[in-house]
């Protein structure tokens, strides 16, 4: 029902309250919040390595892609409401990057749709992460095969 791409932070509590407000047929809301972390396990680096993350995106295509995945989730599951908020710009560890929330009469649909949208965001939404590190300066984060494998699970369902 709603897709937002924005520089500013968001209030999880307020967003979830708004999502289900007025619909007493909703039995559950499943949400996922992605945060900037200060470590990079794939590079074998521990806490404190990543000082900040800058998310670049493709304005226009990003919104179209998010709307498409939201529409597909609503086709696959009986969702009463759905929300995707994805931030761009520079963020520091601990800051919120993304919020996905799905509301349904039943918890299974809410859980599955939430996972589906996140797996899809990781592999199709045109965002790129630039990490700032103390010693190495800046580096672009590589896409991960595990994310693609997670997304591929949904293609045969």
């Amino acid at each position, binding site marked *: 029902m709603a897709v937002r791409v924005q520089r500013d932070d968001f209030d999880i509590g307020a967003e979830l309250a708004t999502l289900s407000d007025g619909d007493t047929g909703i039995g559950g809301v499943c949400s996922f919040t992605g945060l900037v972390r200060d470590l990079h396990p794939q590079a074998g680096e521990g806490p404190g390595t990543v000082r900040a993350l800058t998310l670049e995106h493709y304005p226009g295509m990003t919104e179209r892609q998010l709307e498409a995945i939201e529409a597909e989730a609503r086709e696959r599951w009986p969702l009463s409401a759905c929300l995707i908020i994805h931030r761009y710009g520079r963020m520091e560890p601990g800051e919120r*990057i993304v919020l996905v929330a799905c509301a349904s009469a039943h918890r299974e649909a809410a859980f599955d749709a939430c996972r589906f949208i996140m797996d899809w965001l*990781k592999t199709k939404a045109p965002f790129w992460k630039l990490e700032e590190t103390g010693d190495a300066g800046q580096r672009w984060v590589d896409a991960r095969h595990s994310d693609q494998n997670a997304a591929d699970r949904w293609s045969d369902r």
Partner: protein
Amino acid sequence: MKLLYFAWLRTKIGIAEERVAVPDGVTDVAGLIGWLRDRGDGYAEALANLDVVKVAVNQEYVPLTHPVAAGDEVALFPPVTGG
């Protein structure tokens, strides 16, 4: 034709976007990339390995065989890392 570059393709090529008039022989994405590679070292380096280059024409993902035309918006970028 409007070309857009993102993430490390943008930094290797050195610009975020440009408008180009491609030769008549360039009719699909693969042909466009071949033409771009000949434009200089930054292009050749950025487009050396097509396994790590994604293409969108008019904001939809397309394969290398997809046609391109003068009025198109073509974006070239690495695999995405959102979420």
